[in-house]
């Protein structure tokens, strides 16, 4: 592939190894949409994106994994329900739970897949207003000690893109209380809850902090000109980069 060519066919493996040397896998399922965007975010953060195919049975030697957004298998049964059974998901679940604690970020459909796979508690149901919604969304970072949020300040408000149809986070009260008590609510909606999520939850983490899932899309807020709009100008927002910078700092620099 010549250098002035964007990959036309979802093959975004970059030949030049990124500065950090970190390799971050981006999983594609049939129906995944934001894989190329997630790969771009990984690259802009300074790591090397590695394409992972749902049907493959090996993680290769990636240092972290992003499960991107989209409509895997059309989301026809339930969002993430079929994708969860892919061979690649078994590898990811094992690695995330192993002593090595593989960092895993699930974005939107990726978050839904992580809940279906029981790596994260709760589930997502249809938005309370029943419509797909796309907007620039403000979030508050509630936990900045996870692998994916350690470059943010606690309580920091960030603006990223939100777009989903089944984004209403639900869990029973006991689970919700436990999440709050353990600091596992990683991100909350600010200003307006766009889908009726319990307790304004936008994203959560597992107890160990290596697995994070969120409905909004940080990978769509990484490049000035193409992200959410801020006071600085049209589409200028890059607040999402912090997620990718966070995992890099963990991988390259030990913990923060």
């Amino acid at each position, binding site marked *: 592939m010549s250098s002035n060519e964007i990959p036309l066919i979802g093959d975004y493996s970059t030949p030049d190894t990124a500065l950090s040397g970190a390799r971050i896998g981006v999983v594609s399922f049939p129906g995944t949409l934001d894989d190329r965007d997630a790969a771009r975010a990984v690259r802009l953060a300074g790591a090397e994106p590695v394409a992972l195919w749902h049907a493959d049975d090996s993680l290769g030697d990636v240092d972290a994994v992003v499960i991107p957004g989209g409509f895997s*298998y*059309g989301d*026809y*049964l339930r969002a993430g329900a*079929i994708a969860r*059974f892919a061979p690649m998901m078994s590898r990811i679940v094992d690695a995330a739970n192993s002593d090595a604690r593989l960092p895993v970020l699930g974005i939107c459909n990726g978050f839904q897949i992580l809940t279906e796979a029981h790596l994260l508690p709760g589930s997502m149901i249809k938005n309370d207003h029943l419509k797909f919604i796309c907007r620039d969304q403000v979030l508050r970072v509630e936990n900045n000690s996870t692998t994916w949020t350690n470059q943010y300040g606690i309580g920091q408000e960030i603006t990223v893109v939100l777009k989903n149809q089944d984004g209403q986070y639900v869990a029973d009260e006991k689970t919700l209380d436990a999440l709050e008590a353990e600091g596992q609510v990683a991100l909350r909606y600010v200003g307006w809850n766009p889908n009726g999520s319990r307790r304004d939850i936008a994203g959560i983490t597992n107890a160990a902090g290596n697995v994070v899932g969120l409905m909004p899309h940080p990978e769509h807020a990484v490049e000035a000109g193409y992200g959410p709009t801020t006071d600085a100008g049209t589409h200028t927002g890059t607040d999402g980069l912090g997620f990718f910078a966070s995992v890099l700092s963990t991988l390259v620099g030990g913990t923060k």
Partner: protein
Amino acid sequence: MPRIVVDVMPKPEILDPQGKAIVGALPRLGFDAFSGVRQGKRFELTVDGEVTEEILAQARTAAETLLSNPVIEDVVNVEVVAEA
């Protein structure tokens, strides 16, 4: 409280993408006994008090007009279920 169950299925001649996706996934999970799957909807309507003939008739009309889209779906069942 008694409930009325309304079952709605995609018409047989209409493509059912949902069912198609599931039928593709089943064998991969080791379920090999099923040659076809169709996905429809099940509604449970709660009634306060007794289910009269009139209320059942209402449920049937609601099933045909609101709960199903007659162009692509059939109401396959409307029945009263006793209190759980």
